[in-house]
């Protein structure tokens, strides 16, 4: 069973601070996705990282995929109240004998971020 551990589980910071949240596994993933979910809404896909060591930036958000494709981090610079939400990571894998037909996406439990004005 593949597990994705996200840390911290909860994070409360002041506006303007920087933060990093983590997504770790003992399994190798073919790609990893980050979502943000606001209360009462569905998750919104932020980014997909595919290559080990890959870094992607989305305005003040920086996503990194570990060299071994087992972990990822999300760094937010100068957090704003609008960044508040549940951040979910999800790792994608294809069993070696699947021929591509058994794509599996495993979600972590999320980091609940609160940015206070």
């Amino acid at each position: 069973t593949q597990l994705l551990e996200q840390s911290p589980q909860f994070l409360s910071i002041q506006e303007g601070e920087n933060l990093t949240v983590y997504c770790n596994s003992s399994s190798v993933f073919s790609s990893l996705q980050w979502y943000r979910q606001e209360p009462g809404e569905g998750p919104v896909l932020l980014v997909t990282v595919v290559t080990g060591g890959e870094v992607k930036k989305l305005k003040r958000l920086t996503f990194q995929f570990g060299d071994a494709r087992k972990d990822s981090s999300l760094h937010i610079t100068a957090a704003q109240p609008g960044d508040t939400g549940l951040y979910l990571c999800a790792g994608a894998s294809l069993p070696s004998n699947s021929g591509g037909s058994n794509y599996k996406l495993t979600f972590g439990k999320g980091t609940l971020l609160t940015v206070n004005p």
Partner: protein
Amino acid sequence: NAGVTQTPKFRILKIGQSMTLQCAQDMNHNYMYWYRQDPGMGLKLIYYSVGAGITDKGEVPNGYNVSRSTTEDFPLRLELAAPSQTSVYFCASSYSRGPKHFGDGTRLSIL
């Protein structure tokens, strides 16, 4: 552009009742998914479909059924509601593998 639309938004059922959660997408996506989200537990895949007429089980399919008669619609059926099925249900769609667009969810309580 509505994206993924789920109805109803809220529902309370009694144990043993049945209901259908509706999901429709207007993006002509082949891939559609049903997830449930329980507090502190992340999202678990119930069923998915790679195109009209093709469905397959996910991680937690027991107690649920799906059908995909059209590209647009992917309803989820609960036949005999049980308290363990109290959850928030999300439908999602995508052009390729992996959910990209989620609906806003159906909050289901079974009492």
